């Protein structure tokens, strides 16, 4: 089975939130509150246990003008965020029940019939995607429409996207498409368009990757995400050293005690 992916192109996104709606409806995801955030048109704010697609509204701050003159133009960009389906997925490695698996499409999937809600995937995701649904108790995140892909259909968000900002397809095809799109954008003068796909980090690239403008940090896309398993070696080494030291110290302390007792006799 071919590895599939998402290419989300922020230069084509119009912020309509059709992906959010389609995802909620298809996956029967519950309501997770209604707040006016005051942060541009983004009242969704983050991916979470009941939000698998999240449209970001990035307002670039203009340099303020002087004496009432206009500064730089305010820019307004949109980008639909989603689970990254990491090549080395922190949540998958951390899951103690084996509930989180890699599917035949290369995506990362939480099996709801196995998850016992331990919450360890929540702190192991470098992108803050997976979360525990409080009233349900289990962890949820984007399923990459596993059910639809099984049936040969594209994910709900990609199908509902009216502008082709969310592209679904074979991962290798999408990577080539992204390169072509970048070349096209650069040629037409949009030289700040870049691809965010952390291939050089321990995450090893993501199956959902993004075309954004300028500094990807403005989209809360971390520049150097690391999968937590890279910390295991140093942490376990420290644990082994301190465990050995405690055992040795305890033995030495009681040997000292026993020699004292013998001396007193």
């Amino acid at each position: 089975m071919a590895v599939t992916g998402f290419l989300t192109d922020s230069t084509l996104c119009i912020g309509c939130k059709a992906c959010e709606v389609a995802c909620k409806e298809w996956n029967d995801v519950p309501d997770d509150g209604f707040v006016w955030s005051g942060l541009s048109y983004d009242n969704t704010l983050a991916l979470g246990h009941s939000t698998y697609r999240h449209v970001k509204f990035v307002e670039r701050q203009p340099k303020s003008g002087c004496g009432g003159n206009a500064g730089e133009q305010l820019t307004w960009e949109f980008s639909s965020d989603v689970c990254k389906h990491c090549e080395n997925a922190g949540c998958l490695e951390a899951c103690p029940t084996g509930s989180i698996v890699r599917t035949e499409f290369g995506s990362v999937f939480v099996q709801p019939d196995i998850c016992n809600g331990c919450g360890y995937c929540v702190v192991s995701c470098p992108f803050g995607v997976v979360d525990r649904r409080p009233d349900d108790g289990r962890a949820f995140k984007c399923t990459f429409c596993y059910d639809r892909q099984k049936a040969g259909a594209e994910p709900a968000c990609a199908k509902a996207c009216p502008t082709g900002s969310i592209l679904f397809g074979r991962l290798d095809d999408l990577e080539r498409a992204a390169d072509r799109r970048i070349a096209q954008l650069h040629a037409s003068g949009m030289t700040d368009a870049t691809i965010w796909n952390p291939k050089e980090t321990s995450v090893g690239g993501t199956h959902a990757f993004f075309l954004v403008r300028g500094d990807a940090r403005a989209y809360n896309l971390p520049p150097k995400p690391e999968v937590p398993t890279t910390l295991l070696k140093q942490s376990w080494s420290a644990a082994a050293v301190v465990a050995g030291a405690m055992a040795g110290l305890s033995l030495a302390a009681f040997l000292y005690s026993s020699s004292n007792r013998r001396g007193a006799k």
Partner: protein
Amino acid sequence: MKSHIPETRLDEIRNQAALGQLDAKGVRPPGSPFPETNSYYGLPIVKPPVWTWEIPLYFFAGGAAGVSSVIALTAQMTGASKSLVRDARWIAAIGAAVSGPLLILDLGRPERFLNMLRVFKPQSPMSVGAWTLTAFGTASAGAVIAELLRMRRVSDAAAFIAALSGLVMATYTGVLLGATAIPVWSRHARSLPVHFGASALASASALLALRGHDEPALNILGLAAAALETYMGIEIESCDDVESEPLRNGPTGLTTRIGGFFSGPLPLALRLLGIRSKRARRVAAASALLGSLLTRVAWVEAGKASAADPRPLLK
């Protein structure tokens, strides 16, 4: 003229606005300077841990139980008093018996706790921990039950297994927090197991001391733990990076410092200055116990505070 803000606040706002940095939350007045930011409205990147009070309490109970079983074994090997060995074994067994329910209670689906034993994943500290607790709980309970049934060999064998798994119990929880995406935890991935180990050592020897055992060995262990805790406190204080901010600032910083004081300098001073006083040793033990519990709470809460701050991840 009645107002809910003092008149000086208006001066403050004017001065901040003139400098281009209004620190007020809420609506930005039209035309006010936009603060420069390289994040998405400063919103968090990682999710905070969903764990509640059960988890720090488990770290405390499991750690104390784990080191207790080590003390039980080493005390027995060196011919220490039978009552000390028995009490240490009982503390291990009771600690393990409390640990299981605490962990199950914290699950989102407690009825599915057995799914923890569906697979063994060495790359998941949570999986290693579940299996370790299973082994430790069985062995430490086996040791005291076999002792009650006067099956000495079985009891000693179980106590040996309990001590081995107890060492993991006392330290793996540091790895559990360290090997995550939470900045304050991953920044301290190397020192967390040491800190938690020292905390477990302090609480185990303190519990035995408070049970009335006045073995010099317990004082040595308490002294070593307090010295190590003091060192850890200094190390934390000297970390001035943005990742470690929750350990210094705000309510979590305060908890860290209070926990550190009761774990490190206070018992260290009591044990060194009151070297001949049994009373000083007991106060030191009580202080270490409180410090250990506060330290676990502080680390978990610091993780929650750390998850809210996107800065370390956007560097």
